Structures are given as C-alpha cells and as structure tokens.
C-alpha cells in the first residue's frame, strides 16, 4: 500500500467527515491494539480493527470503506468497552458501513452480510416487524449458495411452532414505511 500526501490531497479530511457524522474522534486513538486483541472476529478480518481506525486517521477512505472488516464486526462492542482512550470503535464501524453503502463501496466478498441486512430491513419496512420466514426466504433467494444451509433447522423450527407462515403486519405499518422513506 502507498499513501501519498501532497498539499492538494490534504483538502479532504476523512477523519473530520467521520467526526462530523458520528462525533467519533479517531485522533484520540494511539494505536495500542487493545480493540484488536479483544475482538472475537478479528481472526476473520482482512484488516485489524485498529488498522481500520488508522485508515481513518490517515484519510485512507477507500481502504476503510472497501474492507471486509467493517462488515465482519459483530457489534459486540467489546472494543468500545475496553478502549483506554474511549474511542467508540464499534460505533465507528456502523458509520463506516453506512458510508460504504452510500458510496457503493461495500466489499463484495461479504455480500452475504449486506444482503442479510437488506432482507431484514425489507421485512421491517413491509410489515413493521420481522417475519422471520419471509425474511429468510428473501435472503436465500438472493444468496442461493446459502440455500442449502440450515436445511435441518428450518423444518425443526416449523414443527416447534417457531416459524410463522403468516407475516404479522402492524397497524402502523404505513407509518413505519414512511420512517424508511424519511430516513433514506
């Protein structure tokens, strides 16, 4: 990787953009690595959580927003809890995911995760609540490779009455839809 810094390239300030959106000040981070040390998913990530912060510190927007790491963050908030400098790392991941989607930079290798979020929110948008069966259905349709997963669990859930065929629409589902519209 190469970082090039010239007077011209200093005009856009990624760290400031992140701070303006979320109030998270990555400058506070002194790169001790405690977030990475405690991250349960770090072993799967392409960049360690502290490196993601580093990207933001150094204005490496593309590197941060195209990383798999931001999608692999499980939002367990262990990092934020233990951060000595009180940097909200888990919350930073939220902002980065949001920006990544906005700029169309979401890493295709973690498409399963982004599709799941989409399917989930579509269900909420449609019914006001989650219809687990239909959400699952949408997810599996869009990610056919996952279709064969959980072939045993599904029927078992059905037999135990844990999956309902009928989506439960709330009365205010139109109000919820409007929330989605207004929060685009």
């Amino acid at each position, binding site marked *: 990787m190469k970082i090039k810094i010239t007077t011209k390239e200093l005009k856009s300030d990624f760290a400031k953009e992140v701070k303006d959106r979320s109030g998270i000040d990555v400058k506070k981070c002194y790169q001790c690595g405690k977030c990475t040390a405690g991250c349960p998913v770090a072993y799967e990530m392409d960049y360690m959580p502290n490196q993601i912060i580093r990207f933001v510190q150094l204005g490496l927007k593309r590197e941060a927003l195209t990383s798999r790491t931001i999608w692999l963050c499980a*939002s367990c908030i*262990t990092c934020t809890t233990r951060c000595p400098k009180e940097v909200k790392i888990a919350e930073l991941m939220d902002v980065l995911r949001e920006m990544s989607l906005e700029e169309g930079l979401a890493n295709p290798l973690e498409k399963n995760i982004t599709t799941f979020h989409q399917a989930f929110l579509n269900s909420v948008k449609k019914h006001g*609540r989650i219809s*687990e069966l239909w959400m699952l259905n949408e997810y599996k349709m869009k990610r056919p490779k996952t279709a064969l997963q959980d072939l*045993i669990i599904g029927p078992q859930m059905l037999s135990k009455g844990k999956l309902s065929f009928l989506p439960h629409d709330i009365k205010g589902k139109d109000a*919820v839809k409007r*929330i989605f519209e207004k929060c685009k």
Partner: protein
Amino acid sequence: MQIKEKTRIGYYPGCAITMGSSSEEYGTSVLRVAEAIGPELEEIHDWNCCGASSAHATNHKLSTALSIRNISLAEQSGFKEILAPCPMCSQRLIISQKDVADDEELKKDVEDAIEMPCNGDVKILNYLELIKNYCMDEIAEKRKKTPKDLKIASYYGCLLLRPPKVLQFDDPENPTSMEEIVEATGAISVDWELKTNCCGGGFTLSRTDIVLKLTNDILECAVDAGADAIAVACPMCHANLDMRQKKIEKEYNRKFNIPIVYISELIGLALDLGPISLGLNKHFIDTESVVNAFA
C-alpha cells in the same frame, strides 16, 4: 418491608420472542412469570421492530427512528418504564434514547420521521433488571421447587452489558445479576470465564462459520466449568447455543448436549409453573435434565 403495588410496565417483546417466532418460549415464560409474581406487563400498542443490527449497521437515523417510535408509543400510553426482554431491543432502545437526547438535530429528524414527539423520560429495563428491581423478594417468597444439584453457567453475551457507559447495567467485565437470580431459584452458579463473550449474534445466517467457532468456545468453557445448563436472557444467544448446538458438535467433534435455558424459564420452574407452559418443550436441546432437577 413495604408491600408493593402492582406496577404497570410497558411490555416491548420485539420480533424474536413474540408468538410464532424463533424464540417465542422466552416471551411466553416472561409473561407467565410476570403473571405469577411480577409487575403488570402491558404490551405497547402496535409496536414495531427496533431495526436490530441490520438497521444500526447500515443507517443510523433509521435505526434511531425505528426504536424511538416504540418509546414514543409507550410514552403516549403513560408508561414510566418499558420492559424489553430481548437485549438487542433494550440495547437499541436505550442507545437511541441517548442519541436523541444528546443530539438536538437528530431528535428533530426522528420526531419528524415518526410523526410523534419523544420526551425521553421512559426508563427501559432489560429482563434481569426487571427481576432484580421487582421480583427478588417474590421469588424467595413464592418459590415452590428447589432444584437438586443443578449447576448453571450464567451467560450474558454482549448486548446486556455493552456499551456500559450507555446501558449502565452491572459490571461489564464481571457481571453478577444473573447469578443472583439463578441462585434465587435454588440452582448453583458456576464460575466461568466466557460469560460476557460474543456468540456471533446476527451472523447466524450470513456467516454461520463465525458463529460456530464463537459458540463452540462458549459451550466448551461452560461444560468444562462443570455446568449442567447455561442460562441466557437473549434470544440470539439462545438460538446460537441451542439451535446450532448439534451443528457445533459436528463441526468441532465434541458432544455437549447441554440445555440452554432462559432465565425466565428457570424462575418459572422454581415457581412450579409447569415446563410446557413455560415453553421448555420448544428447545432443540432436550431440557428434561433441567426440568427433572426441579422435580
């Protein structure tokens, strides 16, 4: 000691634990226990999904608005407190409430989106908090059964405790609330190390491999600590530890067969509310050993 009036509390079940959902036994047992000893739970009218991880991971404003709508509905019904047994829900509600309180602009946007005002003076309780605040004496008074030699590992997961500065519930690294409740049911608490670890939560469908690894670590630790069952207060934790347990066993080649019970079910068993009515038959891993311990 004062005799408490039955307090009216707004009940926000959330999608996962309502009837016909993946974790309906949690909802069922919470309601059954409340009927027996708890404050009066009144479902918030026309509540909607809090948006869970999928919303906060992709759209902060949406996530906040979805959560705040429920709080505003509760406010309108005059509730001072809301119980959200699902920690994903309680965490989202509390964080959203704090975010709008801290950010005037966000508050305006959210109120505009949900077409309702939001005062922000409702207190959101997780299930452990509710029991600790309202039910400890009652459990002691009304306990009918004492389990015989039942060792329970209390598993908190992430969402009940983190972020601690916002949730302000228990010690984030060494919580003890659940253990206190477990011991109130007469069971024995085992000390173990991974009680606040993450189970992989929302990755259960999209990155099952991650969930399997994390849950395997958790199950191993609990079993090695001598636990007969793991108590949980989170539908995601439950789903990953219970429904996925057979798959974990296969993947990591170790037999656990350890029942995963909701803390509400344990309380119910101690109050002798009947295993079926508590939904103990809905688990994937057989709960008979736990039920029998209360015989």
